[in-house]
């Protein structure tokens, strides 16, 4: 396990890693879809935001999440503000879950995450279709939703290890 000297610059960068990962994924659209598997894609920012908002990670600034949403809209070509709204809604739902939960359970969180992303993707689809007249393929949304849900459990293992390494 890598151990850092606290107050070290590298340690500070390490503590900001989730936000850095969020911005890198937003700028480079990290979703492995260049693997050229038909319909395959997943939304990494959703997983990251939900997990760290749920764990109330102190360095996870909501304003930066909001900014990441704006950048994502610019990169993908969606109307500005759509992704920001989605990201902030994820933060709200995650915070609500944290407030009502006494003993956290990964499987419950996982299914709650499915409900949240389904709801948010539905809102996104409806807004883009009804207000912005975008032609969208609903199959892509459903498949993206499904894979995001599946990948949550894998990434949560890594994120858990990351948070543990900070506690140590």
């Amino acid at each position, binding site marked *: 396990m890598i151990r850092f000297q606290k107050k070290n610059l590298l340690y500070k960068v390490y503590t900001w890693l989730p936000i850095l990962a969020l*911005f890198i994924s937003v*700028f480079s659209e990290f979703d492995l879809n260049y693997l050229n598997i038909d319909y395959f894609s997943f939304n990494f920012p959703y997983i990251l935001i939900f997990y760290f908002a749920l764990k109330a990670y102190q360095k996870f600034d909501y304003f930066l999440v*909001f900014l990441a949403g704006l950048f994502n809209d610019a990169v993908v*070509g969606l109307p500005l*503000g759509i992704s*920001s709204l989605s990201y902030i809604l994820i933060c709200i739902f995650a*915070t609500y879950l944290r*407030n009502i939960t006494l003993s956290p359970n990964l499987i419950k969180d996982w299914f709650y995450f499915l409900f949240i992303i389904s709801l948010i993707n539905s809102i996104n689809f409806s807004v883009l279709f009804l207000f912005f007249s975008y032609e969208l393929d609903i199959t*892509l949304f459903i498949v993206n939703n499904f894979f995001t849900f599946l990948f949550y459990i894998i990434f949560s293992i890594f994120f858990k290890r990351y948070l543990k390494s900070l506690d140590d």
Partner: protein
Amino acid sequence: MAESRDDFIIAIRSAFLKKSTKQKFSLLTLVFFSIFIIVLSNFNFKAITVTKSVIKEIVYRSSFIVSIPENFIKSSYLNLTEYTNFYKEFKTTKEELDQLKSENISTKIIKSENDELKSLIDGYTITSNKILAKVIVDHKSPFLKSIIINKGSKEKIKIGTNIYDRSYLVGRVIEVNYTNSRVLLLTDLNSNIPVSITPGNVQAIIVGNGDKKGEIRYIKNDLINKIDDKGIAYTSGTGSIFKSGIPVGTVDLKDENEKILINFYSDFTQLKYVFAEIDELVPTSVKTKEDDQTKVSSDTEQIKLNLISDELQILEESNTKFLEENKELNSLTNELNKQIEILKKENDFQKNLIQQYNLDQEELEFLRLNLIYSSKCQSKKLFSTGFKVGTPEYKECIMRKGKISD
């Protein structure tokens, strides 16, 4: 019951309004802020447009920088695969180049004629200038198919500017910033392309299927049967969205769902550089119209003559090439004929040898049988049934092992 409702309200309020020590804004503020931006971005105020443009400029450049490592890995992988197919591709490209060279000349003739006719009809000529643009961001979003190029309003790019990969249509510009612009690819679900399909000159509209192909959506039912597999689709120019006569792709009728698909000529996943076509209208002045017409026609004649002489030169070159090939083939034929004669002689000699060998074998067999059956076949007495030694009958008798025929 009331208690649980209180808990719910407290949890909701806490989620929306409570700001932890490190947070600068509450989540409710950010939600309002997001909605405000969505609504605001729909208005076309200059200040908003400029702000949007600045944000996008910064984001596109940042995205380009952030994507460098990922792009490096991708391009290295592609280079590696390209090297393995290098020689094969070189050969096919060389053949294609020869063919295209000759086709290019006739295209130039048609183009010059077309320009001449257009200038006569419209009173203006469209000077199209293709500028090279680099693709700076090509993240394949599963929902929207678009790319960002490094040319913008600074280089006179407008909304609707046609974008090409070599001479094939790739898409059109849908958003212009000062130094970059977004191109909506033909594969996007929001992309509609009016096309003509040959043979049959069938008019249709191709809509991107959101993946790698296009789909023919709007076409008269009785014209569907006119479309052939591998038919060529090119832009019809209807609606003035795309210029007419640009090759788009080939018809693919092998779809399982009985949809008429289009395989685009260009591979949109491999775009690195594209061409943006900037059109400028140059009016033909009325005063000097006649002079210009004669000048244009003489220029056109000159161009045609040049092109024809070029074509002639190419034909002569290919002719000499064929003559040389012919000579080589003749000498080769002569050599082969000589070899055939030598082989024939050898064959005759070997045949003689075999024949001689067979005769010797027969003689040997006769001598062997003669020793055994000569007493049976020889005529010794006056009334015996044998034959005189040395006669063909005697030999026949010996070969039949002493049996005298009737």
